């Protein structure tokens, strides 16, 4: 127990080779893949969009112009605020939250069944059945929904044949295809945290509650749901963050008039070629989502460290 530096102790414990590998790999990850890129993005977002020749020149100064643009739009904008971009942003957040809640409602019974009712081979088959669709590419899954919900897709042609409707329903424009596709995309991310949480609940608690005369819905609201709270928060956080940050599904399934905020960011990079503004929008998305998640966690009294189990 003689006094030694932490580093010395670490290298002693692991041996030189292994210790150095661990430290180098972790610092590379933290510095070059996580922290510095984020800082570079912040730096970019605080710059003017200048042609390459002027970069580093006298005009290359820090500015909040890009963030101002997000809120107020172009100078001389009659609305006084950037109705378009803020609107897209707000709609994305609300829609992502909607998809999250939808997913929770859909997945909870399945997770509960898998964790508390299914046994042995049935449970294993269910788990495999849940995972296998996710080996299929995200793009292909969105494509499948495109086929189903298209104007001449399975649903419309079925409804037309049955005579329920006369004209095809435009599922794409109504964003129904998008919600169905996004919900589909994150089923797995919702089911497994829920499953993990509910699985550790002692069956006897449920039996005891039933013996005490609790109806089935009360067993869930009073026992299972409170117990599964970390799992619910974990699943909802992941689904919300990924839904809000989704790009492929909105591009493929999104309605023509309803853009997703990531599509705005994409546009800044690939159509307007305004990297600083794109960086600013990316940061707005990241910060807003993070704050929202932290707020919800505070409300439900769950710590961040419990996520991702």
């Amino acid at each position, binding site marked *: 127990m003689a006094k030694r530096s932490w580093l010395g102790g670490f290298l002693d*414990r692991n*041996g030189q080779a*292994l210790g150095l590998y661990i*430290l180098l*790999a*972790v610092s590379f990850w933290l510095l070059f*893949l*996580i922290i*510095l890129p984020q*800082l*570079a*993005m912040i*730096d970019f977002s605080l710059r003017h969009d200048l042609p390459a020749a002027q970069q580093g020149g006298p005009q290359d100064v820090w500015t909040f112009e890009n963030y101002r643009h997000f809120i107020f739009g172009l100078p001389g904008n009659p609305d006084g605020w950037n109705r378009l971009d803020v609107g897209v942003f707000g709609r994305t957040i609300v829609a992502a939250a909607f998809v999250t809640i939808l997913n929770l409602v859909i997945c909870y*019974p399945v997770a509960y*069944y898998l964790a*508390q*009712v299914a046994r042995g081979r049935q449970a294993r088959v269910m788990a*495999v*059945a*849940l995972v296998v669709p996710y080996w*299929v*590419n*995200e*793009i*292909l899954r969105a*494509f*499948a929904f495109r*086929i*189903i919900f*298209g*104007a*001449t897709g*399975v649903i419309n042609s079925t409804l037309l044949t049955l005579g329920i409707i006369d*004209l*095809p329903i*435009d599922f*794409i*424009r109504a964003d129904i295809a998008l919600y169905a596709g996004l919900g*589909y995309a994150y*089923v797995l991310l919702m089911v497994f945290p829920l499953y993990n949480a509910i699985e550790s609940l002692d069956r006897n608690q449920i039996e005891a509650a039933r013996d005490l005369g609790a109806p089935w819905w009360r*067993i869930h609201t009073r026992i299972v749901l409170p117990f599964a709270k970390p799992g619910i928060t974990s699943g909802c956080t992941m689904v919300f963050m990924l839904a*809000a*940050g989704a*790009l*492929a599904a909105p*591009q*493929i399934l999104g309605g023509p*008039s309803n853009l997703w905020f*990531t*599509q*705005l*960011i*994409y546009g800044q990079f690939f*159509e*307007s070629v305004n990297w600083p503004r794109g960086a600013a929008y*990316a940061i707005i998305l990241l910060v807003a*989502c993070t704050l929202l998640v932290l707020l919800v966690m505070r409300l439900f009294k769950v710590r961040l*460290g419990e*996520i*991702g189990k």
Partner: protein
Amino acid sequence: MTGRRSPRWSQWVIGAYLLLFFAYLFGPLLIMAVTAFNSSSFPRVSPWECLTFEWFVRLVEDQRLMQGLRNSLIIAFGVVVLSVAIGLAGALFLTQIAARSRAGTYTVFISPILMPGVVLGIATVLFWDRVAGSIGMAYGGLFYDGIFLTVLGQSCFIASYCLLVFLARLQRFDSQLIDAALDLGATNTQAFRRILLPFLKPAIGGAAVIAFLASFENYNTTVFTISFYNTFTVEVAQKVRLGIDPTISALAVIVIAISLVAALANEAGQSHQQRRLEGHGRGFVAFFTRNPAAVLAALAVGVIVVVLAFAVQHDPAACKARALEQRLERQQQYQPATPAPAAPTQSAPAAPGARDLNPGQGSFGDVFRGGLAPGSTPTPEPTPAPTPDTRSLNPGQGMFGDVFGGGLAPGTTPAPESHEGDSEE
């Protein structure tokens, strides 16, 4: 809802719900798979025209897709190596630091999973652009290279997945085993290699598989980092946004078939392992006895072989000619009455008349309607091919039109010849 004592009706409700749920999971995939075998140039199940395998041939002949596949495999290899190495180091690091700083470090390590993929992609590109700029690297150098950037951008969060896999495994590790090895004269390196590494071996395999799949199917990050290359997934996304045609369904069939066989094989292997531990026999026959997954896997492989053999000598030409006739007849019937039942209700860029004559073309217009923002002009429209078949033969040129269209924000000026178009060439 909770087990044996629940009344019968609630079991029915739960059963029906589960059925519905798994229909939601598998239905779309199944329908998509079926459309791959229909000769209709718009992927559909009904009306069924002819059984055909031509979409598979088209798929394999697609040079850009195959080039994308090669790039994807190169990237996935790099990501697997980097992420598994980083994830393992991170997990070992986490298990050794003081308990009070562990929760915070853990949060930092898994934060990339929660970050939107586009943010990670953008941050990676911008950072290495800065680095390249500050060391005066010429454009085209390593730090501008799409494959290099994609490997780094993907590894950032895929390493977190690997970390979680390793942590889960390490939680079950008895650290006294390392002490025991040291006590018996092993050096730290020997103890790691002989005790911890063999213990982690399944986790390394698992992490590698997850890293491979995550890398292969990544779109959000890759689309920003890939620069003028393309990966399989990015290429598929562009095809999908250009126009849905059954080659994508054919691709899905292949992916689903591989997934299914892999899942069954994995399940079969595990249950075989299980029974071997319980002292059942080894060998070929023992592998299949009382192992339904193994039987199913073998069956699936058999079906694939039979289908392939059938496909080689199947010729749908006669059927297709008949189908074309029927279609024309049907259209002549409909034409005077209504402007085609399948026609989109909203205004589409393609002329309605042209659409009626050819349903494949009509669906094409439908795609554009979905992808294009109102107000933007669909200028770079692909050359309207007389038949959809030739269109998909040369997707390279026409593709960009829709790529840009889908991404356009209303109000932003559509640059008809934006620079990505050039860099894509």
